Structure formats: structure tokens, C-alpha cells
């Protein structure tokens, strides 16, 4: 086990930020920590890093208890924190060099690593810029480079792609996969379910400090009853028609927010076909019509009764 967290409890005064949280991460995984704002992702990370005191529980990293003095463990951890942590007086290059130098003593090796990190986040043309002159997204990319330059065995990224544009985001996500395939274990925290779905080999969904589901994305989606979501655009549908629609086999719910009819069906065959046939038979005028497979948002919605993103 690279990381093993058991029964972690963390309180801020009366607020229980982590409520008996347990999980373990195996070597080579990209472990996604998915949860809405305030669900306790950052708190969990900070506990693992031995920055935060916690009330109860055990944390092991690389098979050893993690303490603030576990320097040999810290040596192998790369961290990209949610809040950008770089020196405003140092340039892009100097910042990466500084953080890398805290881990890597050999000068030539350090230089090579710094160049690779700059390449990784594609900041080559900004290498002599100070952080104040970087845009929000560029700054995030610098933050990532500072965290991963020393090629750690365990990489922890806490919402690293906030404010990063789609192309760069894709590049970063692909980069993380590459780091992973070169042997790094990754903990990836986000409230973007698409990102988590795209790269994570295993996902833990947390809400209010509790783990509500853990598994691969297929496993998670299999946990819920929702099989398919069909959306029909129509301005002309009566209450009676909606009621009859609900009677169809496998249909779990039908909601109408003009002009969209959202039909959720449980797992089963021919759901879309049945709906199409019904619309034809009832002679309902419609515009677009499309069907989606469940997302992690639907998983979250079904378990907690609320949307992952508001």
C-alpha cells in the first residue's frame, strides 16, 4: 500500500470535516478523490501530509506511519497544493529550481529535471517571468511544475487544473497519465467529474467528510439503478401524456421543465426505442432528442440526493 488511511476523524470546532474516513491506495494507481466544495478533500490531503492535527485515526505512507519528521517519506512525495505556493520574487525557472532543489542535491540532475518540468507544463516561453506577470492558468501550471519536478513516487494533486484552459488541461491530464505510466502513484483531487473519469483508475466519492462510494468508474456506475437518461426537447406535451410515459417499462422518473423532458430509465434493453415509439404514437412534436449513459454526477445524485455541482 502506498497510502493507507483508517478511520480518520478531523474536527474544526463543532464541524466534522472528516468522518471516519478510510481508504487505501495501491502502487501504480491514479486515485481520484471526488467531492463537492467543502467535502473534506483538502483536509484529507493535509492530514496525509502530516500538516494537520487530526482527532482520530491512522495514516501510513509507504507502509510507515506518517509524521512531520518523516523526511525520507516526504522525499518521495510531490505535492501540488490547492492554493498556489510560489515565490513572487523568483522567476518561473527559479521557482521550479528552488523547489526541485529541496529534494534533489545533484546539480546536473536538478537542472535536467527543471527543464523537463518546464516542458511538462509548457512554460518555456515564460521561464523568466515572475509569478505576478502570469495569468491565473499559467500560474497554476507553474504550481504543478514546482510540485512534480523532482519525479516523486507519490504525486498528490489538489484541484490542480482550476482556471486552466481546456487544451492545457488536457495536456496536463495526459502528462499525469504519463507520470503514472512511468511508475508514479497519483492522488488526484477534483470536483470535475469529467477529469476524474478521464484519468483515474479508481475513484472515491466523498461528501461531508464521509466516503460514500469507492471503485472504478464502471463499478460506481453499476452501483446505481439509473441505466440511461433520455432528454427530449418539446413545447407541446400534456400532463396525461407524461403520465402515460411514466407507465412505460423500466422508466424510473419523468420530469418536464419546458422545453426539456428528462426521462430516466433503469438498466435494461430498448429504453430509447420504447420512448421513441411512444412519442411517435402520441404524435408529440419534438426538436432534439438524445440519450446519455449515467455520469458520476448521477452516481452522486442518486446516493446523496443532490447534485455534485450546483
Amino acid at each position: 500500500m502506498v497510502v493507507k488511511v483508517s478511520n480518520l476523524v478531523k474536527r474544526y470546532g463543532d464541524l466534522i470535516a472528516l468522518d471516519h474516513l478510510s481508504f487505501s491506495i495501491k502502487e501504480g494507481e491514479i486515485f481520484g478523490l471526488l467531492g463537492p466544495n467543502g467535502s473534506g478533500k483538502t483536509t484529507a490531503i493535509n492530514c496525509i501530509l502530516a500538516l494537520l492535527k487530526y482527532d482520530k485515526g491512522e495514516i501510513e505512507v509507504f507502509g510507515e506511519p506518517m509524521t512531520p519528521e518523516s523526511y525520507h517519506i516526504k522525499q518521495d512525495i510531490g505535492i501540488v497544493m490547492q492554493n498556489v505556493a510560489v515565490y513572487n520574487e523568483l522567476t518561473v525557472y527559479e521557482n521550479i529550481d528552488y523547489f526541485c532543489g529541496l529534494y534533489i542535491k545533484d546539480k546536473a540532475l536538478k537542472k535536467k529535471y527543471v527543464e523537463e518540468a518546464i516542458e511538462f507544463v509548457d512554460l518555456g516561453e515564460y521561464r523568466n517571468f515572475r509569478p505576478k506577470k502570469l495569468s491565473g492558468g499559467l500560474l497554476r501550471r507553474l504550481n504543478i511544475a514546482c510540485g512534480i519536478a523532482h519525479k516523486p513516487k507519490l504525486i498528490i494533486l489538489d484541484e490542480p487544473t482550476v482556471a486552466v484552459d481546456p487544451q492545457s488541461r488536457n495536456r496536463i491530464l495526459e502528462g499525469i497519465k504519463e507520470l503514472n505510466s512511468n511508475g508514479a502513484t497519483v492522488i488526484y483531487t477534483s470536483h470535475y467529474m469529467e477529469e476524474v473519469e478521464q484519468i483515474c483508475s479508481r475513484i472515491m466519492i466523498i461528501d461531508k467528510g464521509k466516503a460514500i462510494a469507492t471503485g472504478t468508474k464502471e463499478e460506481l456506475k453499476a452501483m446505481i439503478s439509473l441505466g440511461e437518461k433520455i432528454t427530449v426537447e418539446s413545447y407541446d406535451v400534456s400532463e396525461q401524456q407524461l403520465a402515460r410515459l411514466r407507465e412505460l417499462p423500466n422508466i424510473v422518473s419523468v420530469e418536464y421543465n419546458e422545453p426539456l423532458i428528462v426521462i430516466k430509465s433503469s438498466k435494461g434493453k430498448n429504453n430509447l426505442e420504447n420512448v421513441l415509439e411512444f412519442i411517435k404514437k402520441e404524435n408529440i412534436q419534438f426538436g432534439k432528442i438524445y440519450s446519455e449513459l449515467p455520469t458520476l454526477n448521477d452516481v452522486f445524485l442518486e446516493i446523496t440526493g443532490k447534485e455534485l455541482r450546483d
Partner: protein
Amino acid sequence: MFVHIFANRLRCLLRDRETMFWTFMFPLALALFFYMSLSNVGKGEAFQEIDVAVVNDSWYQENQFFRTALEEASRGDDRLFNLTLATGEEARKLLDDGKIKGYIIAGDPPQLIVNESGIYQSIIKSFLDNYTQTFRAVEKVLENDPRIYQEVFDSLGNRKNYVKEAPAAGGKPDNLVYYFYTLIAMACMYGSFFGMREATDIQADITPLAARINIAPVHKLKAFLSSTCAALLIHLSEMMILLAFIRYVLNIDFGPRAGYVLLTTVIGSITGVFFGAFVSAVVKKSEGIKVGILIGVTMIGSCLAGMMYIDMKYIILSKNLPFLYWTNPVNLLSDAFYCLYYFDNLNRYALNIGALSCITVLFCALTYLFIRRRKYASL
């Protein structure tokens, strides 16, 4: 690791405009300002007699004791006053025409009329105050032993030495130099800006950057000390430049004990840096408030040490506020410089440096207690 952190810290701090302003540009500018506005005062104070008038009324004529005192002070080559006898109206006119700095109306206590306040006026005033004090003190003795008259006159005449005393340590007599001492002391204390940054950047609950350093495989106190060394080096260099500027550009003589002056500056710089670290570690408020505290404490300290008004420190002593005297680093520092300049004997210097060292050790210890925390309850 030390070199890596130290070198990067040097780079960071040298590029930190705000800190460089307060610790470097501000004291230099203030030194220049002091020089321009005070240098005339210093010269006048030491070598020029003061034009005064006294109202020649019956009180003056009858009060032989006062009259003799004033005449004594206006006699000889190294006299304090150029004294004119005048009627009340004449005196007023002389004052309005700028022929005299002020005029005295004899009485108990004697009154001083001036149009403006300045160093000359202060000297007349302190002469009169001295007279009143001495007079009161010996009045009763006099009743019993009239022979003491002559001694008292002599002593009053000697009061000239409050402006013309010759320092035993061999420096030239000059109050101006004391203003520069308070300035150097203040600049030492502005080292606190560096200390504040150091302590801030190592406490994970204050900045994300500090949290980041706490996660790196570096011993926290080693990281703190490495970067504090960089801060001390920069601040000491700044202080050396300030000393050189005052000594060689402004031509202010610090007296013969250059080595001790440097030593005192080094200790002062360490005090300043750790004062800032202490404030940052102990005060759990925003950075703005901390900066406010640093500037506020240093300014009030400088003021109490006599930066704006030399006699301030004596007022504090005479009002029995030794606490304010001995806990004010600016005062201890400037008084240490003063001792080096004026006194042959270094006892008082040693006392000052002793107190200063105690304060510094206290700052260090408290800073250590607060920043050594391994984990935080909240970030």
C-alpha cells in the same frame, strides 16, 4: 541544503521592494533629512552665545542671587549669554525685531518670553530651570550658612557645560550625533521586516508557501535558520552602508571606538530581525496589522529614545519609568552608542548591551516556541 535555501533567500529578499524600502532606503533618506535640518543647530549650539534680554525691574535689582547667576553666565569668553538689560517694552521690541532669542522676567520662578521654540530657547529655558532647582535646593542651607553663596554662583556659571561639556571619551561635543544614534538604532529595529518575513514563511497556518515548505523533506528549524541567515546578512550589509553613509558622506564623527560601534550595530541588527520574527510568530493577525505593529513599536521606541527630542529619555528616567527605559531596544541601542562616544568608562555601555541581549534572547526563545510546532490544528 543550507546553501540552496540561503542563496535563494538572498535573491528573494533583495527583490522584495517593500522590505528593502523600509530597511534600507528609508533610514538613508532619514539620515539625509536629519543632516540637512539639524546640522546648523548642532554648530550653533556649540559655539555661539545666545542673545537674551532681562527686564530690569525692581525684582531683578533686589534679587541679588538671581542677578549674579545671570551675570556669571554672561561673562567671559566661553559665556552662554549676551545679556542686555531692558525695560519690558524694550525687551518686547528687541524680541519682535529678532535681535534676541528671548527675554527673561525675573520672579519666582523666573519667566521666559519667546516668539518661537528652538534649540536656543530650550537652552535659556534649561538654564532658568536649573537656576530654580538649584535655588530651591540650597535656599534652606543658605539660611544657615551664607558662605555657600560663592559656590552656588560658580556652579550656576558652570551650567554652561550642558552645551559645552567635553566628552571624556574624546569625541567632539555635539548633540547632533545623538540624533544619528537614534536613527541607527531605529534602522536596526527595522530589521524586524526581515524577521517577520522569515517567521511568516515558515508557519504553515499563515501562508500556503510555508505549508509547502513544511511538506518538503527539510528540517523546519534548519530551513528557518538558513533563510534567517540570509536576512541577517542583508540587513547587516544595509546597516554597514548606512554607517558608512553617515560617517563618510555626511561626515558625522562617531568618536574613536569604531570597533564597538560595529559590534553594537551587529547586536542591534540581530535584535531587530528577531523582534520581527517574534511579532510574526506571536501575533495571530493579518500581515497588515503585523507591519503596523513593527512600524508603530519602532517609531514610538525611537521617539521615547529621543529621536525627535533629545531630553525625552531623561524625562522618562526622571518620571521613574525605568521599565520604558530598559525595555526599549531603540533606547538601549542609542544609549549604547552615546556611551561609546561620551564616556571613558564602559560600564553603562555594558549595561545597555546586557539588557539588549536579554531582550534578544527572549525574542529568539519565544519565536522558537511558537514556530517549532510540528502540526497545525487548522490551516
